[in-house]
């Protein structure tokens, strides 16, 4: 009997322990090592003294802030435009019509496709000598590749954002679609009989219902874009580059003394990510409540 109550007591801890332990060791362990190195605790190069030197190095470097701004801008723009497009497409796909299953499948198509492949596809499509440019040439719209708008290796990072859009719109859209299908048509019908026109029904009835789903998927998207490495590396300009690229470049520099700086950048990146999440959740709560 006592054994049974003990088991009862231990049930939850036993269930959560493996996951929590793995995440703590792998993720928070890694984070702690990084934090240590960023503070100068780096036995491998014989450094044990704790210092904020590397943070001040990073925070006084304009390169860091340019990278931060770029990273933030890319993440924000990609997230907002993905969300808007996703909601729009989900609104169309939720209607029942012939072939809706086919179109829903096509909409989901890019979800499993790796970002790397997406990036290659986007380059082949929108570079100045890409397929679109060639079509433009065939139509007589341009004469030479440089007449075509710059979208790859450009400062605004258009190809980067297109890649993210292509990947993330369906991700958010699928969640919105799931919510919309769960909601059913009745709220809208009530609103309609109460005199709400199409825009009002969307704005006051549907949008508040799908907003929580949109907000949390967009956090995931924002975090992903904020932390991604390959896409800006492959499609972006050399300078300024995104924070993860910059941090990793410093980390992989044969000059090991740059590592603490890389770690300091990572820790700052982490703090910013968590901070943004907190602000975002506050804002979201406020937005949903009012």
């Amino acid at each position, binding site marked *: 009997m006592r054994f049974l109550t003990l088991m009862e007591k231990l049930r939850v801890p036993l269930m959560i322990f493996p996951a929590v332990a793995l995440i703590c060791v792998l993720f928070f362990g890694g984070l702690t090592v990084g934090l240590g190195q960023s503070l100068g605790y780096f036995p491998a190069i014989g450094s044990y003294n704790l210092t904020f030197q590397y943070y001040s190095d990073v925070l006084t470097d304009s390169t860091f802030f340019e990278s931060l701004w770029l990273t933030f801008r890319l993440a924000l723009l990609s997230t907002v435009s993905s969300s808007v497009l996703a909601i729009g497409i989900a609104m169309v796909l939720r209607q029942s019509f012939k072939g809706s299953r086919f179109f829903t499948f096509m909409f989901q198509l890019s979800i499993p496709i790796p970002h790397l492949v997406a990036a290659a596809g986007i380059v082949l499509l929108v570079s100045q000598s890409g397929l679109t440019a060639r079509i433009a040439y065939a139509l007589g719209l341009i004469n030479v590749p440089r007449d075509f708008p710059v979208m790859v290796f450009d400062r605004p990072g258009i190809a980067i954002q297109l890649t993210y859009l292509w990947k993330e719109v369906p991700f958010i859209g699928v969640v919105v679609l799931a919510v919309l299908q769960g909601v*059913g048509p*009745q*709220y809208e*019908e*009530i*609103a*309609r*009989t*109460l*005199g*709400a*026109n199409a825009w*009002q029904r969307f704005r*006051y*009835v549907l949008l*508040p*219902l799908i*907003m929580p789903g949109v907000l949390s998927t967009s956090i995931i998207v924002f975090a992903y874009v904020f932390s991604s490495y390959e896409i800006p590396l492959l499609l972006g300009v050399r300078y300024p580059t995104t924070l993860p690229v910059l941090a990793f470049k410093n980390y992989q520099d044969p000059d090991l003394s740059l590592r603490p700086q890389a770690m300091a950048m990572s820790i700052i990146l982490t703090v910013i990510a968590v901070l943004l999440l907190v602000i975002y959740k506050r804002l979201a709560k406020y937005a*949903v409540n009012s």
Partner: protein
Amino acid sequence: MTTVVLRDLTRRFGNVTAVDRLNLEIASGELVAFLGPSGCGKTTTLRMITGLLLPISGDVLFDGKSMITVPTEKRGAVMVFQKHLLFPTMNVGQNVGFGLRMQGVEKKEMNRRVSEILELVKLPGFENRRAHELSGGQQQRVALARALVVRPKVLLLDEPLANLDANLRLEMRELIRSIQREMGISSVFVTHDQEEAVMLADRIALMFDGVLQQYDVPQAFYQKPLSTRVAHFFRNDNALAGTRRGDVVETALGTLRVDAARVQQPDGQVLVTVRPEDVRLNPEAGSPNCIQAKVLLVVYMGTHTQLQLDVGGHTWLVHSDADFQARVGETIPIELPASRLWLLPAN
């Protein structure tokens, strides 16, 4: 104050005709119940009145004006559903004020009207509650208030009480009835519960398979059903085949007198019917319209006793006093009062 006329209203879904050439008139300020088993087309009709669904043919007229080309949001026909009552993202005040907000009513005026209507549904000061904090009945009342606050031309209720428990349902019926009377809004409500329809409605439209069977005041469905199906729906299966000749009907069990001024079937083959509560047991000797019936089953029901009788090969249900005594298998005389007999067409 609006009259609603449905003219030859027809709607098909694929091969299924959900509503077939429905003609109906709802007088100004009247409360009409659309009654019938599920799938009979009552909700489809309701949706056609709101404009959420367009008819294939026919017309919907409010005060004589065709509404077919008027979109739902401009019709002023407000709907209250049984499920998904309140917008979950809004509080009570916002829910009730929704329709006014859509019309662009000024905030102060809106708040005033919202609190006024909340008082009417007996939820004063509930503006800031969230929907999920309310009980089922309270939610129902908020949904009603939300519909009423815009002063609709027509109020449409789709099984509004189906999700409530028995006591609450009673309370809500009275509330709906009193508010509807007070505000004089032409209203339609859909239900599959004949008791509810009888209690609430000025008139009942009974539908089977998309076809209107009978449209009349509630009493008529008990006293003067137009078919065995209607009678059956109102729990009357007591029937006996016979031949009418003037004020008598010849049956296998004898000759029964009928009130010629009341019954409508012409002479010839008919079915004689009488409601379970109208059959007299223990008739005085020599009473007219007495026949013999065999007791099949006796069930004590608290307020009365229910008997199953074999009447000339038909199984009848009869209600008696609670203290009525009978043995199964016994043959007893029953009286079918002439003033209560109703004739149905023979099948």
